[in-house]
């Protein structure tokens, strides 16, 4: 496997959906190629950093406005039934 193929298969590899033969080939390449190893490692970290980032909080006033709008819609819906 060459460097270009490693990049083509990177998403499947990181998602754990690469078939076992292909994964073995790719890991054999990684064992020899520092550049690809760094790209794979830092791309994995990129995903982890976003996954671990603080969730965006839902402000209470925004939530209240949503539920007020919904209650209004429920009431209108009940009248038309």
């Amino acid at each position, binding site marked *: 496997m060459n460097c270009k193929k490693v990049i083509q298969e*990177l*998403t499947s590899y990181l998602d754990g959906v690469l078939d076992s033969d292909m994964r073995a080939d790719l890991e054999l390449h990684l064992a020899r190629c520092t550049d690809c190893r760094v790209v794979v490692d830092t791309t994995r*970290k990129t995903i982890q*950093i976003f996954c671990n*980032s*603080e969730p*965006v909080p*839902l402000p209470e006033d925004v939530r209240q406005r949503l539920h007020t709008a*919904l209650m209004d*819609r429920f009431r209108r819906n009940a009248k038309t039934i």
Partner: protein
Amino acid sequence: MSATDPKPLASAIVRDDEARLVSAAKAGDAAAFEELVNRYERKIFRLGMNITQNREDAEDVMQEAFLKSYTHLDRFQGDSRFYTWLVRIAVNEALMKLRKRRPNQFSLDEPLSDGEDPVFREIEDWGPSPEQKFAQTELNEILNSVIAELDPIFRVAFLLRDVEGISTEETAQILGISEAAVKSRLLRARLKLRQKLNKYFRRSETQ
């Protein structure tokens, strides 16, 4: 169920429970719909914020997504999860916001290559815990700024797959594209984000 029976997977419980709530809401049970809202409002608001990068737009996206899903609940046939259907409505609303507010910057077409290979331009290790180099608020600013720089077409694929944890198959349904196209956009998104984060996290920058 006996003590030796295997427990159902949590995702299966959520899915069954969700179908029950949707069914009750379709029959006119407002409390059941309210329960669905309580379950997903935070996720939908976060998705709206991440796509539009604007609180006002995110609020509109969330409100429209829930009001439209309630109004058109009879159209939901149950061939996907309710959450997937809801996310599809929210993504469409968010993309409309981007089109309206930033018509010159927005395109759903695949952007032409900028001639730069995002892969092998900058290769440098980051060290074991790059995120610990920054305080939480500073890190949030960095993440927001790099994701905002990404083309919407790639940003949405990354947010759905990697931040919201939605499967490739469901992401393809939501975006109305093939699974191969989802994988291609996801690859570009991940590589571009990696490249953009490189300047903050590379080992030589932080030692």
